[in-house]
């Protein structure tokens, strides 16, 4: 398998370290060669939806430029927010060559970004590896553990960058099934967790996440897995806020999907 260059993003090196550690171990066990980018910066966290705010696109383009200089034409991310921001920025400059030129002119000290990179998420790569191969490497099967696979927003939307169908995605469920778990029916799996409102009005996030987790619990989930560090924080760390509003709420465990994978593969 050829080497894949990897963009971690700020959160993966700090609060979401478990995601990175488990993911890299899993990749190794599956024979994937992952190499971290030599030079990277924060991607900008959210894609700026304005057509005229080119300054806000710089962070992402700079990173894609770094990928271009390494000579690879694909880059992998683990954080859903990084994936979304980089993909959308990439798509923006691919579609509008004029804006790309303006940005290139602004960062004139570096070579021009040619907009020929593809941004991929780890899940897409795992799907390419295939569930058959993953099943072979499973050491501690999850023996029917009932998992609610939570996707959140940024992996699936907007449609142009989504890694799976935005109404009925199955990529995480297929993965969990290959590990021996039993993914449950979870209609709230694509509902937004509240995202950045957690920094300003955590009660909103608490109310939102309450509905999501209750829906998971109603469908008899024992565990919720997620891919995005912000969703992880909102689903896990805000459970204490939920308890303040809904005292009868019982906590439910939340993990990164890679942590579950590394457990199942015994790495």
């Amino acid at each position, binding site marked *: 398998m050829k080497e894949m260059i990897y963009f971690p993003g700020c959160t993966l090196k700090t609060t979401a370290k478990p995601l990175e550690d488990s993911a890299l171990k899993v990749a190794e066990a599956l024979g994937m060669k992952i190499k971290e980018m030599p030079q990277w910066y924060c991607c900008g966290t959210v894609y700026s939806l304005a057509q005229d705010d080119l300054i806000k696109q710089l962070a992402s383009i700079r990173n894609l430029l770094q990928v271009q200089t390494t000579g690879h034409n694909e880059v992998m991310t683990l954080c859903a927010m990084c994936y979304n921001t980089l993909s959308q920025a990439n798509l923006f400059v691919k579609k509008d060559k004029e804006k790309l030129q303006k940005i290139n002119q602004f960062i004139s000290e570096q070579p021009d970004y040619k907009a020929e990179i593809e941004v991929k998420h780890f899940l897409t790569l795992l799907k390419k590896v295939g569930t058959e191969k993953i099943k072979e490497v499973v050491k501690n099967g999850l023996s029917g553990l009932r998992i609610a696979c939570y996707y959140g927003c940024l992996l699936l939307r907007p449609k142009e960058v989504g890694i799976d*169908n935005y*109404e*009925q995605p199955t990529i995480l469920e297929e993965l969990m099934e290959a590990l021996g778990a039993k993914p449950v*029916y979870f*209609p709230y799996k694509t509902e937004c967790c509240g995202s950045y409102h957690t920094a300003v009005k955590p009660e909103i996030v608490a109310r939102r996440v309450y509905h999501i987790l209750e829906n998971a619990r*109603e469908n008899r989930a024992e565990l919720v897995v997620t891919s995005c560090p912000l969703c992880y924080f909102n689903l896990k760390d805000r459970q204490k806020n939920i308890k303040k509003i809904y005292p009868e709420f019982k906590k439910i465990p939340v993990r990164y999907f890679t942590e579950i994978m590394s457990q199942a593969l015994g790495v």
Partner: protein
Amino acid sequence: MRIGVFVCHCGRNIAGSVDVKKVVDEISQIKDVVLCTDYIYLCSEPGQLTIQEKIKELNLTHIVIAACTPSLHGVTFGRAVEAAGLNRYLLEIANIREQCSWVHQHHPEKATKKAISLIKGALAKLKNAQPLKPIKVPLTRKVLVIGGGIAGIRAALDIAQGGIEVYLVEKTPSLGGHMAQLSETFPTLDCSSCILTPLMVEAAHHKNIHVFTYTEVKKVKGVIGNFKVTLEKKPRYVVPEKCTGCNDCVDVCPVIVPNEFDQGLGARKAIYVPFPQAVPLVYTVDLEHCLNDEKLIVCEQCFKICGPKAINFLMEPEEVEIQVGAIVVATGYELLSLDALKEYGGGEYEDVITSLDFERLASASGPTGGVIKRPSDGKVPKRVVFIQCAGSRDPEHGRPYCSKICCMYTAKHALTYKHLVPDGEACVFYIDVRAAGKRYEEFVQRVMGEEKVLYLRGKVSKVFRHNEKMVVLGVDTLSGKSVEIEADLVVVAPAIVPSKGTQELAKLLKSPVDEFGFMSEIHPKLRPVESVSLGVYLAGAVQAPKDISETVAQASAAASKVLSLLSHKEAALEPIVAHVNEELCKACRLCQKACPFKAITMVGKGKKRHAHVEEALCQGCGVCMAICEEHAINVAGFTYEQLSTQLRALLEDKIDGSEKAIKSG
């Protein structure tokens, strides 16, 4: 040659940009132009009269009319010159409106120059023009109607009553189509089968109608007046003449499969009649599900029990060749599959059903005997949510059109539900209510006001399962509230799409379809039942979504077109067809391979071998002309000589680069 040139003002349309007087002056000076004059509206009666008078007065032999596009008034002017005794193919029309004055409104000087060039081009083309006679083809007084639903049945009956033989071909085992599946029809609430079956029976017994069910159209050759169609009768494994309809075979058959007629909500055996009122009442063995296959017989239950010995597992598909003068396409519609509607579960929820499923539940002869039951647990639903516009009016998913009938049938379903379950609640999510037909609006107002069905204006974002109920998340924009409903049953109105096989059939008939797969009519307003392909007519939902009243009207319209066509002994086809110069032809067969209408064959032997064009099949498209390296094949009226002289005349006033083109061409 004595040429007359008539330049039209078309009011201000042409005269507004083109200096007509200047054009007339310049053209008058050209050799052989005996008369050049202008007129304000040449297509008017006095205008045409002027042309005819001048032809007679000045003994004109050729005419150029500089006016609007020939596709608008080509026929009008053609008739006018013929009435004055001239062959209409010695008339050339120069389009100085659509191709000149209309597009160059801001450059009157250049427009005038271009108009002069265009007329010079037309004059040059005329120099090599030949008088042509229309091609007469004999008409076979028989008609093929494809599709045995209400459209096909109505068209067949009307044509048959006009004294013409009809072959009515239907691919399912029985006539009836979707109308037979309906419980009631809006707005009268007639029982659908009750009004349809008499027509089905009449069609089956009419002396002029030959009904072929379980039959498909395999090949179509020929042209208007003379279509040679190959039908394939699929094997039923039951001999129709011997079958008495006693049903014994069904009782013993061990295979149970979902019944397509009941939308999969009910079951049938591998040997079956789709529904009790089927016409013809003949059983069919569905070999795909039967335990036997073409090579091996393992189960003989039905065969043994059949008294008249009507079952024959050795039947093979039978090809039938028919010759007809016209074809009516009435293959209808189907509903968009729930798989495409992922926001409503994508087909994985049993209690989210389509409107046709609801029809079968409501139908007294349906799988539940006319009792509305939830497919999941068989209980009677106490709260039903209807969702309109599912998949229609959706440019994002490639279906921007409105499916026309859903607003009306949803109102009808809500009413039916309220009548069958008086203590039940019904809600309808709509964006608009389209009730434009006769008594349609009154019907919907009755459903809203008297039956007290709650109409919520907004779409539904998601439907999911929660315990035993389906939760519907929608919005009511009129009150500004988002709405959450726990329903027992959700009925979705999916978009109307052309029925399976329409695309392939259209290819066989060389008839175009639009971007959604519906067959194209020549003109949606003025000629809605004629397809672009001569001799092929359209009736019903195959052309666009429509309800039963409009379908029947179109079917009768198509029938009237057919009867009018076949009331003559022969049809006159345009002589704009290709001809081969046998001397020049080197028999390379490029034209034969290129011809999209398969009109070219090779005839003759050895050195004398050459291409031959079947005039009746040729559509005058000119592809053969373009590909022939020897210029041996030419379309009459547009020969290579005519076109090259026209081109030279058009570019006469140009300099530089274009000179090279003229010299080499």
